[in-house]
């Protein structure tokens, strides 16, 4: 009856356009939802700036006493904070549900997204924004504006580095949350991973031993959201940027694959009403 003419050749461009339109509209809707909570947003922005300022003060004092720590000077530390903050913020602005995914799976909330003709993974992730993430997104640019030697090229490079960073953040968090399909409740794993990734990313790469670095370029990819982008940014080496996009694509692909595999086991919250 129906179901003819699916995804033939020539549909690909149409599909991409349809998804681009969807992401744009989801973004606009999320932006409007954010504006509904202006006061809340300003408060959170203030809190975030305060927190970051506290750590900046710590680094200023420490590096003032000792010189570079783990190979990083004060501006290096500020730059990894900038990169991590903007990537993390961008990930949560566009894919605001990324750290709710496990709860959504557990409570049967995927239903709404499965009933709509868009890929459930993108649909669920992009259907929300995190108000405070706008502040994190802005923070990196604020640091950049305050920093000596910022020019248009640096600004462009910074932005180009934040995009794969955001994708890697989103993919990693989504993967941890997708474990809910298999474990029933993965909140412990995913909150641990979130903390690992944020904490490790915000300190100089040089303080970690070799064993740790293997982890930081694989399962907790702080290396790809902070340390490697910092090197690229420092050396203005555009040549390495495509490599970061490839890495991001790999993380996204793996995360997507994990979600699809899990979806086959989805129980739509019925587990709750199934009585034992």
């Amino acid at each position, binding site marked *: 009856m129906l179901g003819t003419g699916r995804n033939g050749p020539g549909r690909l461009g149409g599909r991409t356009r349809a998804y681009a339109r969807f992401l744009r509209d989801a973004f606009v809707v999320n932006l409007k*939802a954010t504006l509904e909570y202006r006061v809340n947003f300003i408060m959170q922005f203030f809190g975030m700036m305060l927190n970051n300022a506290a750590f900046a003060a710590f680094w200023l004092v420490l590096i003032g006493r000792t010189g570079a720590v783990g190979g990083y000077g004060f501006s290096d530390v500020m730059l990894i904070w900038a990169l991590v903050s903007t990537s993390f913020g961008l990930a949560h602005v566009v894919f605001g549900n990324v750290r709710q995914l496990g709860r959504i799976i557990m409570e049967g909330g995927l239903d709404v997204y*499965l*009933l709509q003709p868009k890929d459930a993974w993108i649909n669920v992730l992009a259907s929300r924004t995190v108000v405070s993430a706008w502040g994190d997104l802005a923070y990196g640019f604020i640091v950049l504006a305050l920093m000596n030697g910022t020019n248009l090229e640096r600004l462009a490079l910074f932005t180009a580095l934040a995009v794969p960073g955001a994708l890697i953040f989103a993919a990693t968090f989504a993967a941890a949350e997708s474990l809910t399909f298999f474990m029933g409740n993965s909140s412990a794993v995913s909150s641990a991973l979130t903390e690992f990734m944020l904490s490790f990313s915000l300190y100089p790469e040089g303080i970690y031993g070799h064993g740790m670095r293997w982890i930081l370029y694989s399962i907790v990819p702080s290396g790809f959201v902070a340390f490697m982008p910092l090197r690229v940014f420092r050396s203005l080496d555009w040549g390495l940027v495509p490599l970061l996009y490839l890495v991001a694509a790999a993380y996204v692909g793996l995360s997507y694959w994990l979600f699809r595999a899990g979806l086959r086991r989805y129980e739509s919250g019925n587990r709750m*009403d199934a009585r034992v």
Partner: protein
Amino acid sequence: MPAIIARDLSKTFKTKVRPSGRLAALRSLVKPEYRDVRAVKGVSFEIDDGELVAFLGPNGAGKSTTIKMLMGILRPTGGSATVLGLDPAEDRVELSRYVGAVFGQKSQLWFHLPPSDSFRLLGSIYEIDDDDRRWREAELIERFGLAPYWDVPVRKLSLGERIRCELAASLLPSPVALFLDEPTIGLDVVAKREIRQLLAEAARVDDTTIFMTSHDMGDIEKVCKRAIIIHHGEVVVDESMKALKRRSLSRKYVGVRYASPVDLELPGLSPVKRTPTAASFEVDTSRHSLAEVVRALASRGDLEDITVEDEPLENVIAAIYETRSGAEAQALGLNASKGAGAARAGEAASA
């Protein structure tokens, strides 16, 4: 070709057995114990294009599980489903273009934004041209009377207004079939009536196939033409609304009130409730002629009031729900509503 076909559809959930005691909790971390819960055990039915079907059953009967399998949210463990010619589990995304859904508890509207924004986003989710969308929106705004809420954030709407918007949103992509899970839950009488009217109208105007679950008999009587009842994971009744109502017609409640005390001895019929001047009777019309009973009662004294009522549909369905197994419920299909009828007789008489 039928719009919806379910053949021997079944679903078994693995449920972790909750451990008791501290050591057991530790053990279950290492090696959890599972138990199979058979939520749906081989359900079959066919629904034609444009039919309005009520899908009934007590809590935990497997209604939601079945509906979710038909929509591709859950994978069946056994059997097969075909909806609009597609296999929901395999072609979920394709199917979702033609199927709308209203789940009373789960919203597809953005809570903090007015419906207009949600509709715009839904337009891009369903890949509807902006022009087409505006045209369709205008129609739905008029039909559903949404103009006053169109630019009000959903969180500020009443539940009735919200459900009306939900229903309109699910009709935005002009679905061929509409699934509703408890659409009127929690609504007041007026809002319920409005939703029912809108549903019936949607079915008439767009010729939409409607498949809905509800615990509200009003929804079912006013909107649906056919009822499928599942219980203990099996279909126990599948018949037209008319046939289901006919079951209740075999039992009537007759209430009488006289100006002065009377003697009310009727052969083979004793009152379920009795005062010196009034009484109520439960009449099994297969054993007594209603006309004779009424005549007899009228002849006993100076009649002030007489009421004759059908057995409520609710009692018929309650009797089916109260059974303990699928087989028992099916057996009941032959002489429906005995137990519940007697239980409710007193209530009806006092009314």
